[in-house]
């Protein structure tokens, strides 16, 4: 992360991040279009996005798919993992390709992860596989209703 530490976002970077979190033109010259709105040249915008990606200020540039709409399975799951097994269970989860995110939370249920599968029915299979391997119960909490997704975070 030292590269990130050494690079400070300037006002132009912040303007780009704030504007392009909300969307990106779908047209023949989208960078030119977006750059014009931001008062930049097309090449400068491309170079800056490239740098923001390289410096890890961005995870991605492009689409975010809705797994459920694509016909796949998606769920949030959690486990209560004893301290001395935490690293090994975490490494095991990371090795499973259907685990999209995996993070520690400060709670008795301390291991949280998102499962994304190509087929809806595969969620149960992956959960059973994890329970068999770790001998720990998995709490399965698929969303029943989504009220809001506003991941806009100003820089």
């Amino acid at each position, binding site marked *: 992360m030292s590269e990130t530490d050494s690079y400070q976002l300037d006002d132009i970077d912040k303007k780009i991040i704030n504007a392009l*979190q909300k969307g990106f033109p779908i047209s023949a010259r989208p960078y030119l279009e977006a750059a014009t709105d931001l008062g930049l040249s097309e090449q400068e915008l491309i170079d800056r996005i490239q740098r923001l990606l390289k410096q890890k200020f961005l995870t*991605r540039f492009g689409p975010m798919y809705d797994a459920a*709409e694509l016909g796949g399975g998606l769920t949030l799951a959690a486990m209560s993992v004893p301290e001395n097994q935490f690293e090994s269970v975490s490494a095991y989860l990371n090795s499973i*390709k259907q685990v999209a995110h995996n993070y520690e939370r400060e709670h008795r249920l301390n291991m949280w992860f998102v499962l994304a599968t190509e087929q809806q029915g595969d969620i149960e299979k992956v959960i059973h596989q994890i329970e068999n391997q770790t001998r720990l119960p998995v*709490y399965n909490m698929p969303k029943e*209703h*989504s*009220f*809001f997704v506003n991941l806009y975070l100003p820089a």
Partner: protein
Amino acid sequence: MTELEKRILCELQKGLPLETRPYLAIAEAVGCKETDVLQFIEAKQTENIISRFGLIIMHRTLGYEHNAMVVWDIPDNLVDQIAGEMANYDCVNLCYRRPRVPPDWPYNLFCMIHAKSRGFVYETLKIIQSELQIDSYQYAVLFSEKAYKQRGAKYV
């Protein structure tokens, strides 16, 4: 979805090419016309298969280091109304109803707050609880400071 549509989704998933005609580059990679790609993306946005399109930020490197999942046990007959009101707060980034897992996980409403400090999370929480009059319901705040794996899921 057709084979061509799957190829476009797959190609897009790698990230939009950083060149002046990114959609043309995708069209050439999958073997169709640029206008096909443009129309396809617009259609998938309308259908909500593409839920967002643009920059996806790494919230931790932007200073949003305190990620709190706040969960509540709200009576079934009230949860949708309260969740709807909660979603109106700018600082609430995600808000979902999920099943309780009895006996030891009584919570059915989940919201996510990305913040630059823990203090901000607690202040926000106090305001929401008092304004929505939900102080009496059991809740928990689960902070996360460390992600072991964060990548976009691959679907196609």
